[in-house]
């Protein structure tokens, strides 16, 4: 609830409580009745005669009623005169009727109130007066039934519609007056107009009901408390909100209740201040309860002299939420201060808003040196110059280049050195503006580690290549023996011709040229082998994947031929450029095809075919799918196939697939194996590599 609303409620409360006190303590009804009694008693002393010419008879009648005995005539007259004066002075209309309910007279107030003339009423039947406006069923009940029995009726309420003064609520006191012997009885009707009072009362009751409803709907507890701390009144929408029952609370003192002494002291002090200054006093306090501690907020307002109203609200939940918020803020702060990542937040102009300790460590600047300055000071050219444009372009187009992703960029330390870092940027809104938070990680060390991993991998890959070479040896030996045989034959032929002398220089020359070119071909094979087996640094180059496959096909051709296995190449129509270490990719392909060959030989079927399909797949990646007609992967093998040192071959190392996989993953690709999809027995090995796209990658911090 807002303060304004609280204040309003307080005002309402004050009004209501005053009203309540009026209703509860003001015995106006009784007072009215009392007044009537007084009138009656006064009436009883009315003088026999009246100076007012309109009243003597009435006064006389009354006096006659009141004083049946013989009293001194003068005194009587005096009394009668006084009574007449009183009768005509009281505001309450009085009417005197005879036994047949004919009007015998009325006082000034009567004629004035009902705005009728004495002549119009005299000796007329009451019910016929003024167009039967007095013919009210309840009035008939009073006069015809109740009065004859009881002779005296008090506070009989009647409502009637009167021509001159409209609808009225009347409170009637009626009394049968006995006169002396022989004289008929008279009826005195004292008519009090309570219309206004009743209206006020109804309005008050309606208001009261509304206030009650309002109070009941409010979650707050309310107490009326005297200056000394005594509870005078209590209200709570829910009983359970109170620490004690209303019965226990009412009349007790704050000091005797369930509030701790210190709290009671503060409450009393607040009450004092509220009373002394006339201002609203607000205090918060905690009370231990069996379930823990409950927190309250009390607003203390002066309601009456030496009395206050205290509106008390249970703020335990709010306190708990505040506490949680504080804790979470503290956690966030501690995270910001302890994480290894630098955290830098900027506004939409690039101005640094925060700079955590890790960022200080990474960049070498203290937070003070950076906060308030543009974040581009943390970037080397050319990013430094471009950064403002990045923000502007993002804000105007909403195209996210960096937001939400992590990327590697170059950062600049205070000492001017640059370093590789990984940045993730997230966006948030604060005060109507864009804010960006960059999470910065110094990856110089990681880069170094990655480099080491690459070295290890290259070494492993080399070991594997050497062992692969062993497996390839017999096929390669044949490959090498062909040209060597040709050379030997050609040279021997030359020798034979020279020995016999039966030859020409031309025919010898032709043979020698053949021999030379065959020798070179043998050299090429050796060179290629050496390149494959050589221990070397990884070298990235842009290569056509199809060329690598063709080169591998040549390398494995003898092996395939030896086992009479057909290699079916299905190359893509267009070049598939990849950025890769050619030898390593070749090695992976050799490994895959060699596994295919082994599987085919193990299966021993008639169909011996390795299919190699090169294509660009749906994801825009370069893909090589190698199908074989081998035994296929059994469940047990499929599960363990990527495990190092797992092998199904008698002399296998069990490193081929794990190393192949790590090589491919280092090239940001994937290596997977699955049973052939076309229903034939055998396995499909799929090797996916990202296509190389031209142009330098655009990078920035934001």
């Amino acid at each position, binding site marked *: 609830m807002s303060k304004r609303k609280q204040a309003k409620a307080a005002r309402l409360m004050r009004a209501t409580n005053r009203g309540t006190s009026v209703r509860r303590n003001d015995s106006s009804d009784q007072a009215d009745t009392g007044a009537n009694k007084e009138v009656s008693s006064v009436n009883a002393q009315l003088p026999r005669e009246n100076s007012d010419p309109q009243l003597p008879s009435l006064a006389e009648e009354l006096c006659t009623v009141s004083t049946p005995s013989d009293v001194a005539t003068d005194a009587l007259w005096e009394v009668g005169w006084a009574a007449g004066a009183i009768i005509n002075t009281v505001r309450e209309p009085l009417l005197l009727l005879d036994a047949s309910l004919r009007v015998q007279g009325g006082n000034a107030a009567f004629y004035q109130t009902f705005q009728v003339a004495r002549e119009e009423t005299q000796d007329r039947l009451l019910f016929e007066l003024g167009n039967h406006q007095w013919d009210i069923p309840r009035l008939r009940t009073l006069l015809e039934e109740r009065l004859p029995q009881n002779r005296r009726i008090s506070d009989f309420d009647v409502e009637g519609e009167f021509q001159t003064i409209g609808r009225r609520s009347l409170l009637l006191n009626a009394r049968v007056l006995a006169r002396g012997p022989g004289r008929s009885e008279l009826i005195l009707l004292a008519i009090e107009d309570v219309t206004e009072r009743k209206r006020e009362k109804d309005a008050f009751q309606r208001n009261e009901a509304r206030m009650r409803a309002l109070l009941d709907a409010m979650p707050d507890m309310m107490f009326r408390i005297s200056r000394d701390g005594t509870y005078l009144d209590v209200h709570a929408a829910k009983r359970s909100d109170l620490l004690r029952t209303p019965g226990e609370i009412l009349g007790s003192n704050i000091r005797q209740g369930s509030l701790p002494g210190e709290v009671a002291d503060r409450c009393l002090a607040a009450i004092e201040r509220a009373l002394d200054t006339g201002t609203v006093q607000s205090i918060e306090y905690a009370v231990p309860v069996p379930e823990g501690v409950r927190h309250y907020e009390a607003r203390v307002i002066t309601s009456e002299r030496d009395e206050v109203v205290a509106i008390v609200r249970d703020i335990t939940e709010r306190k708990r939420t505040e506490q949680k918020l504080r804790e979470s803020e503290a956690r966030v702060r501690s995270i910001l201060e302890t994480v290894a990542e630098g955290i830098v937040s900027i506004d939409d102009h690039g101005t640094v808003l925060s700079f955590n300790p890790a960022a200080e460590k990474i960049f070498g600047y203290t937070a003070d040196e950076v906060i308030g300055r543009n974040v581009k000071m943390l970037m080397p050219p050319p990013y430094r110059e471009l950064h403002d444009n990045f923000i502007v372009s993002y804000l105007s187009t909403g195209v996210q280049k960096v937001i939400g992703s992590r990327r590697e960029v170059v950062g600049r330390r205070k000492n001017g050195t640059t370093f590789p870092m990984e940045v993730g940027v997230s966006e948030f809104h604060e005060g109507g503006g864009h804010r960006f938070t960059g999470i910065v990680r110094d990856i110089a060390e990681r880069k170094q580690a990655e480099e080491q991993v690459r070295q290890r991998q290259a070494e492993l890959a080399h070991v594997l290549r050497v062992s692969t070479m062993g497996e390839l040896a017999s096929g390669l030996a044949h*490959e090498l*023996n*062909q040209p060597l*045989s*040709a050379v030997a034959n*050609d040279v*021997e*032929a030359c020798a*034979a011709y020279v020995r016999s002398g039966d030859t020409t220089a031309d025919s010898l020359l032709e043979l020698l040229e053949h021999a030379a070119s065959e020798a070179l071909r043998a050299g090429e094979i050796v060179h290629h082998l050496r390149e494959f087996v050589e221990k070397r640094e990884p070298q990235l180059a842009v290569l056509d994947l199809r060329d690598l496959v063709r080169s591998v096909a040549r390398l494995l051709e003898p092996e395939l031929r030896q086992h009479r296995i057909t290699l079916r190449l299905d190359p893509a129509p267009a070049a598939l450029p990849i950025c890769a270490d050619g030898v390593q990719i070749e090695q992976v392909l050799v490994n895959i095809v060699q596994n295919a060959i082994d599987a085919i030989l193990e299966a021993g079927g008639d169909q011996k075919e390795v299919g190699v399909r090169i294509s660009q797949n749906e994801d825009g990646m370069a893909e090589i799918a190698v199908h074989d007609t081998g035994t296929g992967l059994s469940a047990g093998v499929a599960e363990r196939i990527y495990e190092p040192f797992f092998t199904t071959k008698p002399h296998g190392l069990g490193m081929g697939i794990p190393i192949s996989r790590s090589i491919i993953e280092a090239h940001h690709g994937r290596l997977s194996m699955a049973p052939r999809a076309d229903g034939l027995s055998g396995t499909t090995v799929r090797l996916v590599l990202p296509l190389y796209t031209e142009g330098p990658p655009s990078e920035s911090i934001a």
Partner: protein
Amino acid sequence: MSAEPTVFVIDDNAEVRRSLRALMKSAGLAVETYASGEEFLDGYDASRPGCLLLDIRLRGSSGLDLQDELRRRNAALPVIVMTGYGNVPTSVRALRGGAIDFLQKPIAPKRLLERIHEALEIDRHAREVATTRTAVAARLARLTPREREITELLVAGKSSKEIAAALHLSVRTVEGHRRGVLRKMEVSSAAHLAGTVLRARGQ
């Protein structure tokens, strides 16, 4: 022998074929080269003498299969198997299939030529034996049953006296048959007869 002995080379490597052709020619040998066993079989006449120089690992049917096919055709051409890689099972199979030699590439040309000359000699000899066998069989066909009976005993080294006793004939009658046999078999003596017949029988 009407036709000149020829070295038939079957190898799927063109350069190897070319160099082998050059080597054979330099040695004065007739040579024909083929890229596959099928190509060779298509035009081969079993009557042509010579030898086969075969790379065991051919496209299509392998060299070993070719040997089987040649045997089925009764083409008794001596075969020299060459291979770029040798292992025990393939060499055993090659030799069982009738190969006279199993050589691993690269083969020293001089050695290869030696082996080819040997193979050609084997072929020549085999063809000679085959020719003799045919002639002897024809002469044997001309003998009477009694003369054939006496021939067997003569080849077994029996004297006329022993034959007469065994066959319950007079020595004189045996001598008469003996003269007829020697005349019909176109030999000059019993020893000559035994040599001819045994040789024809491959003993």
